[in-house]
């Protein structure tokens, strides 16, 4: 078992609001540890729009999203936050000593008396095709990721999708699988041109069976996948024998496992009290785009404010016997309060 990570505030989500929480917590001498499913800090800003200018960060007429993240990382450096990156927060339980224990999908265990959920849009999860009994076949022939290509050796594989990952895995697995079928809704592929050409070559050579203008609409098998039902735009319905079906339709943001932690949720967002952005579970706060309250605006600057107020209540949970005195950074610098 890996070492258990212990901290004062466990922050789920290393986007701008999660990062700034470290600064405000640091002024109160609270230690922080951040968890993010993405392999780097910054959340959407780094992952999706690092080169887009943001115009509503106070004091910056314009700042590139990627630069804002770099600045935030620099701003929190003195407080030496810990990071668990590339792992998704999965299960949460309350320990007898009142702290929370949070385990990631990779099994890393974290303990803290306070959790800040700063998860933004949520964690990015595979988009599942709308096929009736698809969940019954998950891990029984249906995979949304290719984890170990060797699992597909000498098997009959059907891949669906038209983007880069569908093309790239089709090319790669054509060598490994016994049979490989690629199914795409349209004739054109939007992946990289050389991948598209390579798939067409492999199809011409009979190594990939390419079925376009078609979609998988049904699954067959008794406990284990044995085939897929394909609906073709002009040729109607037919079946393809398959040991594995790999739908690759990209990722979509989902609340994910956090939705099962007993938090009050409205339309995919966590309900909070605007006094301190606390949730209905004492000790868990939700800040930034992931929360909702009357008048909510999904803005980074609002998230910064939410983080600041949440830290005040977090202090009282971490140090129930201590008084909290408010200090300006102009007076005490980043030393903040003496604890």
């Amino acid at each position, binding site marked *: 078992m890996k070492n258990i990570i212990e901290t004062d505030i466990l922050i789920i989500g290393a986007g701008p609001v999660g990062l700034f929480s470290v600064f405000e917590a640091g002024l109160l001498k609270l230690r922080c540890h951040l968890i993010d499913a993405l392999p780097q800090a910054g959340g959407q800003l780094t992952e999706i*729009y690092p080169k887009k200018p943001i115009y509503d960060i106070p004091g910056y007429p314009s700042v590139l999203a990627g630069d804002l993240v770099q600045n935030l990382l620099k701003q929190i450096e003195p407080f030496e936050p810990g990071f668990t990156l590339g792992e998704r927060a999965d299960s949460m339980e309350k320990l007898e000593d009142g702290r929370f224990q949070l385990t990631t999908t990779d099994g890393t265990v974290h303990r803290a008396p306070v959790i800040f959920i700063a998860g933004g849009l949520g964690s990015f999860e595979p988009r599942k095709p*709308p096929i009736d009994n698809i969940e019954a076949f998950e891990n029984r022939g249906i995979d949304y990721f290719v984890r170990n290509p060797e699992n597909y050796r000498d098997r009959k594989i059907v891949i669906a999708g038209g*983007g880069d990952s569908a093309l790239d895995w089709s090319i790669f697995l054509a060598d490994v699988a016994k049979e490989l079928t690629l199914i795409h809704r349209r004739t054109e592929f939007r992946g990289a041109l050389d991948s598209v050409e390579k798939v067409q070559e492999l199809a011409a050579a009979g190594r990939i069976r390419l079925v376009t203008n078609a979609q998988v609409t049904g699954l067959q098998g008794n406990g284990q996948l044995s085939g897929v039902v394909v609906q073709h735009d002009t040729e109607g319905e037919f079946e393809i024998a398959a040991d594995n079906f790999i739908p690759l339709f990209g990722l979509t943001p989902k609340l994910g496992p956090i939705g099962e932690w007993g938090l009050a949720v409205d339309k995919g967002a966590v309900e909070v009290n605007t006094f301190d952005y606390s949730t209905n579970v004492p000790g868990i706060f939700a800040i930034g785009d992931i929360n909702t309250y009357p008048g909510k605006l999904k803005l980074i600057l609002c998230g910064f404010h939410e983080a600041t107020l949440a830290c005040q209540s977090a202090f009282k949970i971490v140090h129930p016997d201590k008084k909290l005195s408010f200090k300006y950074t102009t007076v005490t610098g980043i030393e903040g309060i003496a604890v």
Partner: protein
Amino acid sequence: MEENMIKITVIDREDLPHELDAPTDMNMNLMELCKSYELPVEGTCGGMALCASCHVYVQSDHELNDPTDDELDMLDQAFFVKGNSRLGCQIKLKTALDGLIVKLAPVAV
């Protein structure tokens, strides 16, 4: 027609039409319009063509702006996509769209 105001019909997933007054001077898109009338459109990603939760079928023959690569990429990954599919967040409300009719696409889980 009121100045800077057009009519857009949004047919919901129960086939109920909603005729909406849509301002053309507020830099709004169709996803935002649906949300402002509390129609069941999530707009999870906030209009960056990243989630397809504002997927609609365009049912009238209005000339729309061409979809960007980002929008086409997202439609490629969405479900229930047809020839007249668009993302509401990429359709800017403008005078030429007066009388536009769209239908909300089914929600993909």
